[in-house]
């Protein structure tokens, strides 16, 4: 099966710093792929590079076979790639409803997806007229993910969804992400290996800006030595 996303030898600089020094991987269609690695390994930069926020200086990125490196972020998003950045990047001054409506790519997207979104995140329905700034951390994260669902995205990039959230909220988010993967492909950056291993079918390990290992998540879960070596977890 052709991968939905393919990165080949990506090199990205932020200012003078060479952050990604050769990231290559493929994300299979309709599955969750977790990007794993220690803090500062380059996982978030990889997602930003895919989105065109930190454009690569070398290498190729293909989405559904088309090259997207060199395109601007709004052009990449318009192709059907949704990004849920870390730190619950919602619009604080807008209401929950406005945050969802602004993600429409075609008129009527929100009306069409409303039922599905509120079945995944029932809390949001109750808070619909509240401004983003008045939501709790978990609610903001739900809204950030819900926003990525409004448009028909075929690929979702989700950065650290569980960061700073209570375990009970993480449970809800995990089940929502699982349901999302039924309709679209997900690439997930997750520090919490337990969460990542329960969600993802595939993994890519990034170390010091290079992709060093990839494969099926089940194989990694059974490979204690690799987990210890690359992720520092036992």
């Amino acid at each position, binding site marked *: 099966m052709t991968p939905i996303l393919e990165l080949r030898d990506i090199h990205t600089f932020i200012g003078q710093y060479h952050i990604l020094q050769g990231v290559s991987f493929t994300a299979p269609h309709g599955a969750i792929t977790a990007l794993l690695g220690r803090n500062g390994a380059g996982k978030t930069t990889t997602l930003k590079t895919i989105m065109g926020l930190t454009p690569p200086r070398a290498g190729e990125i293909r989405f559904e076979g088309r090259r997207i490196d060199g395109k601007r972020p*709004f052009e990449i998003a318009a192709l059907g790639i949704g990004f849920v950045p870390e730190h619950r990047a919602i619009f604080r001054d807008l209401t929950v409803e406005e945050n969802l409506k602004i993600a429409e*790519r075609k008129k009527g997207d929100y009306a069409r997806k409303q039922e599905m979104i509120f079945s995944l995140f029932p809390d949001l329905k109750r808070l619909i007229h509240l401004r983003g700034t008045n939501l709790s951390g978990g609610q903001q994260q739900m809204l950030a993910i819900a926003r990525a669902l409004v*448009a028909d995205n075929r690929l979702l990039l989700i950065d650290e969804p569980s960061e700073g959230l209570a375990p009970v909220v993480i449970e809800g988010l995990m089940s929502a992400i699982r349901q999302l993967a039924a309709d679209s492909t997900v690439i997930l950056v997750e520090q919490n290996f337990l969460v990542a291993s329960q969600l993802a079918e595939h993994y890519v390990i990034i170390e010091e800006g290079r992709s060093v290992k990839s494969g099926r998540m089940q194989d990694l879960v059974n490979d204690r030595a690799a987990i210890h070596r690359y992720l520092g977890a036992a």
Partner: protein
Amino acid sequence: MTPSAPSFVQQHRIALISLVTLILLPFIVGVFEGASPLEVWSNRSGASKFVQGLAIEIFILALYALSYDLIFGFTGLLSFGHSMFFAVGAYLTGIAIKSFGLNLWQTFGLLMLAAVVQALLFGIVLPRVKGITFALVTLGMSSVFHIVIMSRELGDYTGADVGLQGVIVPDFISPATERLRLYFVALTILVLFYLLYRRFVDSPTGRVCKAIRENEGRAQMLGYNTFLFKLTALTLSSITAAIAGALHTIYQPIVSPDTAGLGFTVTALLIILIGGVGTLNGALVGAVIFRLLDFGLRRYLGESASFINGAIYVLIVLFLPYGIVGAWQLKAAPTFQQMRQGWQRLLEMFGLSRVRRASKE
């Protein structure tokens, strides 16, 4: 039983009362002077004419401040060159009528063209610079325009440092003989633009502008070409400010080069700070307070009024960081916590907050 939704009149009662008051204002003032409505209608009431003049100035300022609120308050574009939008409208109207003998409609067409061109001029730098850099670049552009209108070479057209004088406006809106008509023309233009702006900020386009104000990168990640939205806001703002400038030329006997200076941009900024940044209503309320305060203090304190004026503005920004309309919307006197949030918001809008900068990286 569920409560029924408020009617249109209930929802907009303050706006409607204000509008009716403004329509009746010249006649009410006339009554106090002992003039009949017919005398007011035929511009024979001195006190009414005076109040109409003051109100026209407020309408012009409000229109100008609305245009600034759209780009700064709603789209987050901090421009220090906004006065150029106004001055281009003012000078172009004067020169078109005085030096080229164009009629009002021809002048209006030219004005629209110039407003779009100057918005595009500002738009050229939009993708390259942001925040305070954009403010400085726009200041540079308006300074060039200021120098051009002050130059002796163009003195025959612009009046150089003396200002543009002797513009003969058509009789039917002459501030001397048909001030009441000019009053209603200015009021109508203000109301129409207010409604247009209200529609704009509540539209999907307006929503994206608000998103850009908060975080442009996030808006791009949702698939929006933010440049086009900023350019749209700039163009609408430029057209509005140019029309305000044209009204200024029609009403005032002289167009001062100061209208192109930084000071006049600061006037727009002060008005929306007083009224409430990003509220639209704040531009209207702020213009009333700004002009009346200036008029009242100058009348009684002379030149030292500027000092008191400045002190009052500082106090308003300190204690009402959301402005008067913002404080009204809170429905209570702002708490210290709310004041801190308000100051933080202002710092973010001026690109001076470390939190904002960090979150944008």
